[in-house]
């Protein structure tokens, strides 16, 4: 960033005869354009909602860059988003101010060595930084105050911390310099069908059936865990195996498409995880079909989209990550998730990202220098028109013009787009097609996870979806526990259930806050965020953090929850009723809203299965699939609750289904709290995993690194499915059995699967219906992009 650009706006408000008036007006009228760039946006929403009410300072959120004068950059700026940030900044009239919140905006935060992250301060001149991951709404408001002070003439750029002299106890001991704790096997053996003897009667039966049906096509069929079966096939016969699984075994959707790079054996492993919604006993079973292909620059593989449409977007993603061309998938022309200037095929093992340093060396910067994208600042070689132009889908525009259609490019900075871009083709007021352009918040957590210890990945796992942090955390931890065969203490299981359900309630109210906003109904937003504030308060008291507690660890939870907080939780289950009633009256039962949602964006049962929709949205279409019922974990099978299903499959069904689910969640919390209150105090971390550190069983503080630092998972692939608020979240960890970092981590988040549903449900609807459909799916872009 050039020096002259910095503080230009501040000089600007200080110049001229009328500058006192100008300063005063600008100071009290800082309107942020809600340019949601990352997960800190959740806290921005909280700052704007009734709990903190940013409007007190005259700070009114407005969606249009031309009419605002303030950008709050919420966290990570990816390479794809960088261009959008610059465009928005260029669009704004002077004087304009930029506030960067969150740790990612300063040095990349937790994503500091990601291949897709860049620094906002290299793209636009920043006036003030607020640290935190994520920042709290109070912090954000403090940032607004700081800008006001800066306009008044104070020279500040970030929050100043006090320096405190710690009392030292005499001479410091000479200690050995810690080395990197990572243990990496030089030539790891990557095997995803490691046999495990489990007590699973149906599995053996299923194995026999598969052997009969796939006679002569497979190479091996292995039971790798309870409810997990792996089928190895050759590349030639892969298609036939898939065909039989789809036709005869009625496996109707793909849960995951994964590629594993094994450079030292010159191969890629391509795997599809398939399962069935139509056959009840196959519902909990995940069948992995995989094959090995030769490692080339751009290997080809037949696409399975003709059998399983739900694999479509994941195949495109794998094309971006590994360069594997899935023949038959129409999205192989360009990049889907990644930006044009992101490094090619970043998830291949030979693409190395910066290693963590544990020792500060003289002259070596703590974080790697990241070059800003090439187009910033304005390069002289490019004309004004070309500068900062978002990539336009020229073929789409051409085709649309031929058919007398109108094309609108919506997002990534749009009051109703979230952090992704839609290319909407419409004929009159009817949507012909919507093309998604995701990846604006793609921070590459899968690559990062390969370079960190298992325990270090917990914070990473919950960052994609901080609105439903506990369930994301739980999913990852369960995959590790499955691998280690750890039994979690009963008390911890109950605690986890309580927190997971609170988190589900929180995520529901987040979505129910965004939905009214898209309908232009700010009261609904305020009411639901008021309730969410209560949920967050509980989570803070339990864990100490609003959105990113990282509280669930392999073998239990970090520490016991005190009784008074449990009592408070019990009170919450009754206190929520009154507010929920008010919320329902103003929003859910609003006649205008019902007329907007009824019969809009219908997905039939067949369509929902075909496109691989998950979670409450799948249930709204009439599929009775809830992981908590189908393959119960924690204590869900011990409590009295019901899974909700609907049959309408429209927006109203999706909303009512989730509303009903929240009432069930409250029921679960109530029962679980009552159960815990009667339980004697005891361990919350499994002693098995603690080993020599049994004294940490009530509180892991001080022992975390000792206990988990050298955690190594047994060889094989460990997959966990967890019901998060918006659907099934799937973690698949591949371990080589020697390293204490995972060989590959694959995360499939519900929103990523539901993206297809939004597109299909909105086709043929009215233009305004698109936002109804979009919001009814509770789409949260960071979660989808990961």
């Amino acid at each position: 960033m050039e020096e002259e650009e910095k503080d230009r706006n501040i000089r600007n408000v200080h110049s001229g005869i009328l500058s006192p008036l100008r300063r005063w007006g600008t100071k009290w009228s800082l309107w942020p354009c809600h340019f949601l760039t990352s997960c800190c946006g959740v806290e921005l929403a909280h700052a704007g909602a009734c709990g903190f009410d940013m409007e007190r300072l005259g700070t009114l959120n407005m969606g249009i860059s031309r009419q605002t004068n303030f950008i709050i950059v919420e966290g990570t700026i990816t390479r794809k988003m960088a261009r959008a940030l610059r465009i928005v900044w260029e669009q704004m009239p002077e004087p304009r101010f930029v506030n960067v919140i969150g740790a990612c905006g300063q040095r990349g935060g937790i994503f500091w060595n990601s291949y897709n992250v860049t620094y906002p301060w290299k793209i636009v001149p920043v006036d003030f930084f607020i640290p935190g991951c994520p920042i709290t709404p109070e912090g954000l408001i403090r940032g607004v105050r700081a800008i006001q002070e800066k306009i008044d003439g104070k020279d500040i750029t970030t929050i100043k911390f006090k320096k405190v002299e710690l009392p030292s106890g005499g001479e410091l001991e000479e200690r050995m310099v810690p080395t990197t704790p990572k243990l990496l096997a030089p030539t790891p053996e990557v095997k995803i069908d490691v046999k495990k003897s489990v007590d699973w009667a149906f599995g053996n039966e299923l194995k026999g059936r598969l052997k009969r049906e796939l006679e002569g096509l497979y190479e091996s069929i292995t039971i790798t865990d309870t409810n997990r079966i792996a089928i190895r096939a050759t590349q030639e016969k892969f298609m036939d195996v898939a065909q039989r699984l789809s036709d005869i075994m009625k496996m109707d959707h793909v849960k995951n498409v994964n590629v594993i790079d094994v450079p030292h054996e010159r191969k890629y492993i391509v795997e599809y995880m398939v399962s069935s919604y139509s056959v009840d006993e196959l519902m909990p079973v995940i069948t992995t079909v995989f094959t090995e292909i030769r490692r080339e620059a751009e290997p080809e593989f037949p696409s399975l989209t003709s059998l399983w449409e739900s694999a479509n977007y994941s195949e495109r993603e794998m094309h971006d990550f590994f360069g594997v061309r899935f023949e038959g998938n129409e999205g192989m022309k360009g990049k889907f998730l990644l930006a044009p200037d992101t490094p090619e095929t970043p998830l291949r093992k030979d693409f190395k990202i910066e290693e963590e340093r544990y020792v500060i060396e003289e002259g070596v910067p703590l974080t790697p220098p990241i070059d800003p994208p090439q187009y910033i600042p304005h390069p002289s070689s490019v004309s004004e028109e070309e500068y900062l132009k978002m990539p336009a889908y020229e073929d789409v525009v051409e085709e649309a013009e031929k058919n007398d259609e109108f094309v609108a490019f919506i997002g990534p900075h749009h009051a109703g787009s979230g952090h992704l871009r839609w290319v909407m083709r419409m004929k009159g007021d009817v949507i012909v097609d919507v093309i998604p352009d995701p990846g604006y918040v793609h921070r590459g957590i899968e690559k990062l996870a390969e370079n960190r210890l298992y325990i270090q990945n917990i914070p990473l796992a919950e960052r994609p979806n901080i609105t439903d942090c506990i369930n994301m955390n739980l999913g990852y931890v369960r995959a590790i526990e499955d691998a280690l065969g750890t039994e979690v203490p009963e008390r911890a299981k109950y605690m986890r259930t309580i927190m997971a359900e609170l988190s589900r309630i929180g995520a529901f109210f987040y979505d129910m806050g965004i939905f009214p906003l898209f309908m232009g109904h700010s009261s609904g937003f305020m009411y639901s965020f008021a309730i969410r504030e209560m949920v967050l308060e509980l989570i803070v008291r339990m864990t100490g953090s609003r959105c990113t507690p990282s509280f669930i660890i392999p073998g239990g939870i970090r520490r016991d929850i005190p009784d008074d907080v449990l009592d408070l939780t019990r009170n919450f289950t009754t206190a929520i009723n009154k507010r929920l009633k008010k919320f329902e009256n103003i929003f859910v039962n609003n006649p205008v809203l019902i007329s907007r949602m009824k019969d809009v964006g219908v997905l039939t049962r067949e369509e929902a299965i075909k496109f691989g929709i998950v979670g409450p949205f799948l249930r709204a279409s009439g599929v009775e699939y809830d992981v908590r019922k189908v393959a119960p974990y924690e204590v869900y099978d011990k409590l009295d609750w019901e899974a909700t299903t609907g049959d309408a499959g429209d927006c109203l069904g999706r909303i009512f289904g989730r509303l009903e689910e929240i009432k069930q969640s409250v029921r679960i919390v109530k029962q679980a709290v009552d159960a815990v209150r009667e339980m004697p105090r005891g361990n919350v971390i499994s002693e098995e995993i603690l080993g020599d550190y049994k004294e940490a069983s009530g509180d892991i503080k001080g022992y975390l690194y000792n206990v988990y630092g050298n955690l190594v998972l047994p060889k094989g692939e460990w997959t966990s499915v967890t019901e998060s608020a918006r659907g099934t979240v799937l973690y698949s960890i591949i371990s080589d059995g020697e390293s204490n970092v995972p060989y590959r981590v694959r995360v499939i988040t519900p929103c990523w699967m539901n993206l297809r549903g939004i597109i299909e449900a909105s086709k043929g609807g009215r233009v305004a219906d698109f936002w109804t459909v979009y919001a009814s799916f509770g789409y949260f872009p960071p979660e989808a992009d990961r």
Partner: protein
Amino acid sequence: MMEMINGLMNTMLSNQVSIPLIEPMLDMLQGIPMMGYMIALVLWKPFFAIVICPGLTVGGVSLLFFPWIERKLCARIQWRVGPHEIVWWLGGVIQILADTLRFLFQEVIVHKDAHKRYFLQFPFLTFIAFLLPLLFIPAGNIVAIKTPYGLQIVLLLLCLFPLFVMGLGWASNSRFAYIGTVREAFVYFAEEVPFIIAALAMIILYKTSDLTLMASEQCIPGIILNPIAALTFFIAAAMATSRMPFEIAESDQELCAGPHVEYSGIAFGLIYVLCYEKGYIISGLMTVLFLGGGAGPAIPYLGDLSGAFWFILKTYFVMTTLFVLRTIYPRYRLDQGLKIGWSPMLIMALIALAVSLVEVAVI
């Protein structure tokens, strides 16, 4: 020369606003040379109507404070505080002044694709054109232009509003502005027909279209005489001023404020207050037609201003109701909005017409 001035003086003196409260002060000021003429001019009813009430001063003050009232009220309904910190002991009452100053000193961006001249002219033209109906709306017995065709002229001028908004959108030459402009045109047609018919029903009922007479002849307010017409008029007003649930053309989350998406700085500032201006005028009209205009218990100290006082009070009441709708309703889709305009509202307007005819025939 003197004769002309004296003639003018006599005309003005014969039509003065009488305010007993400030009469002693005026008597004192009469002693200052030339001040007599000035006072006569200011208190001359037409001039007073244009400059003070219901015209520029009251209108301007409304524009400056009404958004604050709206924001505060909505905030209350939404469990929060609203603008507060700017002068905390007055509840942030000058918030809109700060916003105005900010807009005033901000850069006005004319993007490359815009039609530069129209793009810059339209906000100002629109702002001025929107003020014209105020000339014909009486506040009590103070009115700028008294004509037997008052209502028709006001309706005609109100019909100009959407044309200007479409002009804004067209000059912007942006995709969202284009969609917004088209939507505006559709909604305008759907809303205008029932709106005019509802007003027509009141002409039939009162047997006059002189707004002053219409207001003063309501011994029973129009809203009781013909509630259906009042309801139709109110819904049409909500549509005309783009209020929820009919904020279809400007829908913030879909089209980023539609026709105004490209405007910045003071040009946007003017557009931002347009909807309040529109709201003020239509609420004023509604007050005259259905709520008895300036009728109300006379306040002796205020004299002629008593009527104006009641008029403003009622107008604010209607305006508040109109604006607070946004906390209650989400927005309709375009086709739903049009359907409402063309079927239930049109039918309601026709029923209102019939009600008026029957009432006139019976009484």
